[in-house]
């Protein structure tokens, strides 16, 4: 009987250790795999079939069915320009200009990775729908409270993130995403 308990304990320990270490490694690889550009992170290997098993696992989980970077480049921001994580208790301003791609968009996601429920059904801005200054630049307010001008609701969950999608990026941008002039993400005020 003691042998049975010992085997069961060993198997349980093996499973817990194995699952725990796998999850941790996938998380660490996923968090560090991408190209960094200010507050933005992009995965170079999204869509590639020759990535290592940890990267593939990470991509399958958080960027399911993403296309490769010559087709679409995905950047995500989970932090502001200072490196503090994006919180719905704070207000932010996304500020930027034109980007070297045929088409691009900025989308807010709730902490759970889905679109933020809001009365207006407003989830994103595209290069066409943004209100611009006379010099072609734009500011987008990110806040749970409405704002004049460009505003994206960030909702009620604790944290949120922003996705920047570039479709058919120029070859230069696709080759060097870390050098692209991406929007800044400035924290303005916190409650």
């Amino acid at each position, binding site marked *: 009987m003691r042998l049975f308990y010992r085997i069961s304990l*060993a198997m349980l320990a093996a499973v817990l250790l*194995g699952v725990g270490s796998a999850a941790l490694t996938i998380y660490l690889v996923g968090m560090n795999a991408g190209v960094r550009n200010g507050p933005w992170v992009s995965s170079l290997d999204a869509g590639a079939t020759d990535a290592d098993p940890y990267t593939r696992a990470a991509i399958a989980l958080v960027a399911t069915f993403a296309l490769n970077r010559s087709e679409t480049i995905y950047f995500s921001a989970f932090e502001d320009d200072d490196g503090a994580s994006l919180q719905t208790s704070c207000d932010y301003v996304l500020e930027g200009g034109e980007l070297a791609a045929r088409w691009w968009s900025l989308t807010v996601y709730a902490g759970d990775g889905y*679109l933020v429920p809001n009365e207006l059904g407003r989830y994103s801005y595209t290069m066409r729908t943004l209100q611009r200054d006379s010099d072609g630049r734009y500011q987008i307010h990110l806040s749970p409270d409405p704002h004049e001008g460009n505003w994206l609701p960030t909702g009620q969950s604790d944290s949120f993130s922003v996705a920047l999608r570039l479709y058919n990026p120029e070859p230069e941008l696709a080759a060097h995403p870390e050098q692209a002039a991406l929007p800044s993400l400035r924290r303005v005020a916190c409650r």
Partner: protein
Amino acid sequence: MSDVKPEKRQKSSKRSLLVWSAATLLGAVLVHVLLVYSVPYLVMGHLQLQTKLEANEMHHFPQPTSDSRSVVRPSPDLLYSACPFDLSAGPLRVTARVPEGYFSLAAFADNTDNFFVLSPLRQQQAGASLGDNVVLVLLREGQDYAPREGEQVLQSPSTQGLVLLRYLVEEPSRLSELSALQHEASCSTLH
């Protein structure tokens, strides 16, 4: 055990602990490796269970909203059409009409690997301009098919997988036109 000297009992229990620890560690490594390699397949399987989409049929979706909670980080500016495929009954023919703006047809294996992308705008494909038909035939290993004119034949690394179409809503005022074009896409098994 009462006739074994105390030192011998200590030594043998230390050795026993070593053996058990080594076995547990080995088991943990096995679990770790198996899990990491399985994650992409599990993601695919989980999605199939969640969405319950009929295989070898094209399913059309309107722009995602905060109610869209099957795949994380969906783009609210895209019309998605999905054809989960199962090639066990025969090759799959996929047809789609090319719209004016950004459009892509991507095929994913059963481990979410993206093994094919057709993107007319970027690839400047002859004949793939607005209103044209794109016809793709998917084969698994061992299947044969003689393509008709205009058809592209593609080998799938797995019997099951997903074909995903993306239509970018570049002009919100022309959404109904784009949606009509989207709904002309189809997929079916060739017997």
